[in-house]
């Protein structure tokens, strides 16, 4: 991949998001929950970057910071060459038509009292993208057909749709303003297996047919992330521990956490499963309220040496486009 600067659509550098914990009568700050603690990555035009990790690793927080739904504690978010880290709500509004979001739960992310057509068309009105009523109707119909729904269903309400169809409505709403970046936050984990593939394929087709559409694909399911992404960033306790092309992720995972995570994902093939080595991690993910010193993974790591508890390893390149944050690799 040639990393010319004008090909970068989103650059996040050293992003930190701390949530204060208030206690007592005077609501004094007693601690910080370090949801993300120094995350940096670049997202290219037309690329899909997968952000994967277990619950509480901060992957959703990254997505929300990029959208400006959280005000980052420190760090920079550069979108299409402009710093959007600390924009006022007014100014952020104009960027939001370029950054859309698809939510995890298609049951709670659609307003039950709004019909499907107005859910999909609302962004057009908010961003004043449409002048006449006729234009509005045409665009909504077009969006419905793009995501594979019948435009005549626009008068129906969310409860009349199945889970997969609802998620299509969510996708149509995200597409309404022709965004150049869509943040997909666990878009398929609430759906049935046979429906998941339909949505994955839809997202892939949309990217193929759009001119410049990048995805930041946040999920916990490694097989799905690997399938849809060009590159994958693995997060653990607020840090990116490994970032590489998705092919390399399975072929040569390097960080011990990535290796354990991969080995924990069952493959639907008993013949492969028979011979696969499984790394079972000790213990559980520590609390981000009180993260371990040094490398966040060292208390559970099977490769840890005493130095691991002293320094926080930075990401270093081990091969072109393959970065790992581990002193043992």
């Amino acid at each position, binding site marked *: 991949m040639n990393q010319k600067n004008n090909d970068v659509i989103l650059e996040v550098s050293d992003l930190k998001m701390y949530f204060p914990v208030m206690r007592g009568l005077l609501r004094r700050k007693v601690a910080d929950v370090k949801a993300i603690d120094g995350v940096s990555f670049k997202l290219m035009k037309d690329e899909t970057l997968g952000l994967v990790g277990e619950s509480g690793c901060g992957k959703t927080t990254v997505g929300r910071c990029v959208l400006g739904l959280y005000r980052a504690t420190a760090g920079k978010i550069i979108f299409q060459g402009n710093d959007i880290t600390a924009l006022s709500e007014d100014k952020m509004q104009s960027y939001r038509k370029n950054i859309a979001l698809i939510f995890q739960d298609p049951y709670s992310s659609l307003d039950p009292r709004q019909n499907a057509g107005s859910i999909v068309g609302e962004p057009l009105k908010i961003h004043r993208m449409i002048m006449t009523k006729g234009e509005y109707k045409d665009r909504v119909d077009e969006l419905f057909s793009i995501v594979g729904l019948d435009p005549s269903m626009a008068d129906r309400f969310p409860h009349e749709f199945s889970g997969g169809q609802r998620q299509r409505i969510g996708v149509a709403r995200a597409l309404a303003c022709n965004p150049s970046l869509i943040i997909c936050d666990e878009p398929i984990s609430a759906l049935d297996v046979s429906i998941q593939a339909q949505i994955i394929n839809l997202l892939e087709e949309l990217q193929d047919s759009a001119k410049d559409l990048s995805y930041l694909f946040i999920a916990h399911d490694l097989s799905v992330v690997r399938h849809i992404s060009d590159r994958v960033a693995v997060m653990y306790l607020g840090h990116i521990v490994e970032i590489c092309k998705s092919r390399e992720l399975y072929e040569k995972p390097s960080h011990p956490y990535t290796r354990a995570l991969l080995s924990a994902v069952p493959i*639907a093939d008993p013949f492969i499963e028979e011979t696969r080595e499984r790394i079972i*991690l000790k213990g559980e993910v520590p609390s981000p309220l009180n993260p371990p010193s040094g490398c966040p993974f060292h208390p559970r790591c099977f490769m840890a040496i005493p130095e691991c508890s002293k320094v926080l390893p930075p990401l270093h390149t081990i091969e072109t486009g393959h970065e790992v944050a581990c002193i043992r690799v």
Partner: protein
Amino acid sequence: MAELLQVKDLVTQFKTESGVVKAVNGVSYYINEQEIIGLVGESGCGKSVSQLSVMQLISAPGEIAGGKVIFEGKDLLKYKPHGPEMRSVRGAKIAMIFQEPMTSLNPVLTIGQQLTEMLVLHLEMSNDEAQKKAIELLNMVGIPAAERRLEDYPHNFSGGMRQRVMIAMGLSCNPKILIADEPTTALDVTTQAQLLEMMKDMVQRFRTSLIIVTHNLGVVARYAQRIYIMYAGRIVESGTTKDIFRNPRHPYTMGLLKCIPRLDEEEGKKLVPIEGLPPNLINMPPTCAFLPRCSWKIAKCSKKPWPELTSVGDNHFIRCYADTKEKK
């Protein structure tokens, strides 16, 4: 090996305002001693309801409308759901672990109270004995400082730890069969792996048979010896794990295997989704429920009722008219 549990033509239905929902519609399966079987299907296919029926845990508007559940030579469905016979089986000889460790533990009782309750009730232990046994069980499922943790409430435990408690509870009376209904679905992958390995070791140690109910084909690929695939209240394919994955014969199973992304797949591979939606279980037509989504359908499918399970190999059965062997 003797068949430990045999379920025959089980029918469980729910009477709703809009019609009768046959959630389980003539399901038959068996499990041998010390065997691990998998029951796989999507939400609403009746996999959980079939297990709850075995335990007679179906409450109104649901009812078990037919079939037999033969366990140790006796038909469990002949027992009253709340009668003493059923109670001596439920929890003691057939135990169940539920999906949500958050909601299946009582939040106002300590873990110790919940664990010892079963021991006192079923094994007639004294409180002290039960306490000792509970500590032993918690140690076995890998809960550190078990003695102290007996005093804790469910909210003091993380999701993975709660599920460990559930497993300890399930195994506490040394049951013949443990039914695990989506035991790890609510958990993270690394915790999932920890728990499944632990569960496998435990059932070997306790010489228990295990029924894993799940939608995750990967989980059963690793642990189950035989698999039943369910769709719309019926078993559509059954066979050994190796046959199901290497040589699937029912169109639904084949579709399911093609539509999940695999960790080891080749780059640029397209998923082949199963078109359409799972059927509404109210007033189902007599024909095959998979017919509207099936790419193998032949003329016979829409004329005849859903076929019976027919053998297509050694211990390998499918419910299909089409000859799915050719052009695979």
